[in-house]
């Protein structure tokens, strides 16, 4: 009997990985639990264990192969009394892997245009570079959080920081968000500039009291004496198949509160420029990243002093018929929607908000005055969401310019389901944006 050993998924968002090393040879007998290979993802190197007893019949993917898709057969397991190769000839003859599929692929649909004085880097690298550059130039900046140091970051965003800056600048904390958020805030009151990583913003709810009551409000309550220069950062929004408690967008929660600045990057350029601005900012900044975006590549300026000012949106694509207002991962989906709309004769303008508080109302209003229609996009719940706020702002500032009611594309008003089909239904998709834009243009 022959069993295919498949390329395993080692995290909820992993789509492919590198088969770094085989730890067995063809013909080796193995038992369940034996280590058979090392696999590298963009986050980590992990060892793969055998799940059955038997003998390695054939290694289908050579060591060092990059871009091996999850669920690709990587080896064949045969009964221990069988002979390798000969008995499996018919199966091995099948073209499991074509050569061209084993090459590295950029994880984006379109080729990235390299801008001058820039490099093509992932959002993850851009975030790390931003922290490293600021830590080099300002000794008061330090990083703390769960697994940020020795483990190199749960999502590898802090990779290499411990090596470069040592354990006086990079701190692994216990899993106690309330406590370490408060300690970060105290350190900020003491004139340091902490970067506090939450493994995800879902866990930051444990620290909500410290973030709101201590970080956001103390400047006001002290009559301006007690500034709190701190950055809280980490992945926000839907991950993949992790269900309701680990998949939520907190943009509207934090944006609700005076005293906080809230930013959410989309591209590598946003990530670097905004994070550097956030670290230099004298106020507490909530920095909402997106796990799904970490591995995506964009052109990003190399300059150590490249900043994206907080409070400034960016028009990613100009258009004349409808304004799509989005942030974070929804910017990419909006750009995809704009391409589809273009084929239908609708020219959409796509605004990447980048900052949620302060909100760049001017850019939104100017665009709506030009297009006369607006669609907001977010992963969060619709009720009292960012879209609701933007819609109110448009009503207050550009009511007379509107040719249709503002439409909101949001996550559905339900806790995130686990099942793949339900999860897809719960999250806003490109088609939803296309449909909403068509509706406000009365072309559905």
């Amino acid at each position, binding site marked *: 009997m022959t069993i295919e050993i498949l390329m395993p998924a080692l995290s909820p968002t992993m789509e492919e990985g590198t088969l770094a090393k085989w730890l067995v040879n063809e013909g080796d007998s193995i038992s369940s639990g034996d280590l058979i290979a090392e696999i590298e993802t963009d986050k980590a190197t992990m060892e793969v264990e055998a799940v059955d007893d038997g003998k390695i019949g054939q290694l289908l993917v050579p060591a060092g192969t990059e871009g091996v898709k999850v669920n690709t057969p990587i080896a064949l397991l045969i009964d221990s009394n069988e002979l390798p190769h000969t008995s499996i000839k018919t199966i091995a003859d099948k073209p499991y892997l074509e050569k061209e599929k084993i090459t590295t692929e950029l994880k984006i649909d379109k080729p990235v245009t390299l801008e001058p004085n820039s490099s093509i880097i992932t959002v993850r690298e851009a975030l790390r570079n931003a922290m490293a550059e600021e830590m080099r130039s300002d000794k008061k900046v*330090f990083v703390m959080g769960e697994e940020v140091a020795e483990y190199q970051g749960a999502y590898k965003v802090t990779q290499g920081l411990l090596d470069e800056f040592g354990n*006086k600048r990079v*701190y692994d*904390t*216990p899993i*106690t968000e*309330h*406590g*370490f*958020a*408060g*300690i*970060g*805030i*105290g*350190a*900020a*009151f*003491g*004139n*340091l500039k902490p970067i506090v990583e939450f493994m995800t913003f879902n866990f930051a709810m444990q620290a909500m*009291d*410290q973030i709101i*009551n*201590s970080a956001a409000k*103390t*400047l*006001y*309550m*002290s*009559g*301006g*004496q*007690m*500034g709190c220069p701190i950055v809280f950062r980490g992945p926000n929004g839907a991950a993949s198949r992790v269900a309701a408690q680990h998949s939520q967008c907190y943009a509207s929660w934090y944006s609700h509160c*005076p*005293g906080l*600045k809230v930013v959410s990057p989309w591209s590598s350029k946003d990530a670097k420029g905004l994070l550097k601005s956030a670290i230099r*900012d*004298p*106020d507490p900044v909530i920095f909402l990243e997106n796990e799904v975006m970490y591995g995506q590549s964009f052109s990003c300026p190399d300059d150590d002093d490249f900043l994206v000012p907080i409070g400034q949106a960016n028009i990613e694509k100009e258009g004349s018929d409808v304004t799509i207002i989005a942030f974070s991962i929804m910017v990419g989906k909006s750009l995809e929607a704009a391409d589809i709309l273009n084929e239908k004769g609708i020219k959409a303008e796509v605004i990447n908000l980048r900052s949620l508080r302060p909100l760049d109302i001017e850019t939104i209003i100017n665009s709506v005055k030009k297009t006369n229609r607006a669609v907001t996009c977010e992963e969060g719940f619709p009720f009292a969401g960012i879209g609701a706020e933007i819609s109110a702002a448009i009503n207050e500032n550009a009511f007379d310019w509107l040719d249709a009611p503002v439409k909101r594309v949001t996550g559905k008003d339900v806790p995130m389901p686990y099942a793949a089909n339900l999860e897809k239904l719960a999250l806003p998709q490109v088609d939803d944006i296309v449909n909403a834009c068509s509706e406000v243009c009365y072309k559905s």
Partner: protein
Amino acid sequence: MKKNISSLVKNNSKFNYDLDLLKDMYKKMLLIRRFEEKAGQLYGMGKIGGFCHLYIGQEAVVVGIQSAQIDGDSIVTSYRDHGHMIACDMDPKGVMAELTGREDGYSKGKGGSMHMFSREKGFFGGHGIVAAQVPIGAGLAFAHKYNGNKNVCITYFGDGAANQGQVYESYNIASLWQLPVIFVIENNKYGMGTSVNRSSAGDNLSDRGKAYGIKSEIVDGMDIIAVREAAIKAIEYCRLGKGPYILEMKTYRYRGHSMSDPAKYRTRDEVEQIRKTSDPIENIKVLLNKMGVVDKVLKDIDVEIKSIIADAARFAQDSPEPSPSELYTDITIN
């Protein structure tokens, strides 16, 4: 509990201590007591609004500890904070003007009784959420250590706060990272209306540090000499970089939890008994007498203090309300 030093010295005619220091501590305790009495009075007259938590009865704790500090040390506490501010030499005028919600208050009238700060004096609040100041204090200690200075942070909290989870998250990290923080539990026997034995399992709150490897001591918080001696030892330990320290101060508040608390959860007798037998100000008076300070001198101090408080009360009522334009300032720095 640590031996009651003053009860020893009361019976010891040869008691000797730094007289100037003793007088200073007496003055400060009296200043706090008179300040709080005045605040209670102004509250009753409707001049002070909202919540107002008085420190009367607990004066020896903060004054004794403050006497062991050096410049640059930081202090953080809960909402029962007037005593701590006065002990830090913050101006009673500015504190009282904050209570009345006026522009000359330490927070320009925007913080009130529970939220006042003075970076200059090393006072980092004044925090309204029970136990929120505990991780903040550990964070201030982190900053001292990070900057490589020899300063420490004194982090005060009550017996009620001692049951909050973030206290233990802070103990854990403070001990792991050897932070120079002294956790001072002001155990005044009641977390609002619930006595310690009805809310807290185990014998002593200070014992809870053992699980984190934190040294602790129980101190008679009504005895300023005992408080000071314990503080000197704890602060020295922290300054040497040996990590955190817990001092559990057994103390008592004479007034209700806040102004609106009728304190029906304890008998009038209980309060009277403590006032009679262990009032911290009466205790220090005995010591001063023993050192040859006559009642006339103490009376003169009292007169001086009363006039400072009267000035503060007048100032706090004469100071204008904050300008309406203050509504939108200090929300963010830029």
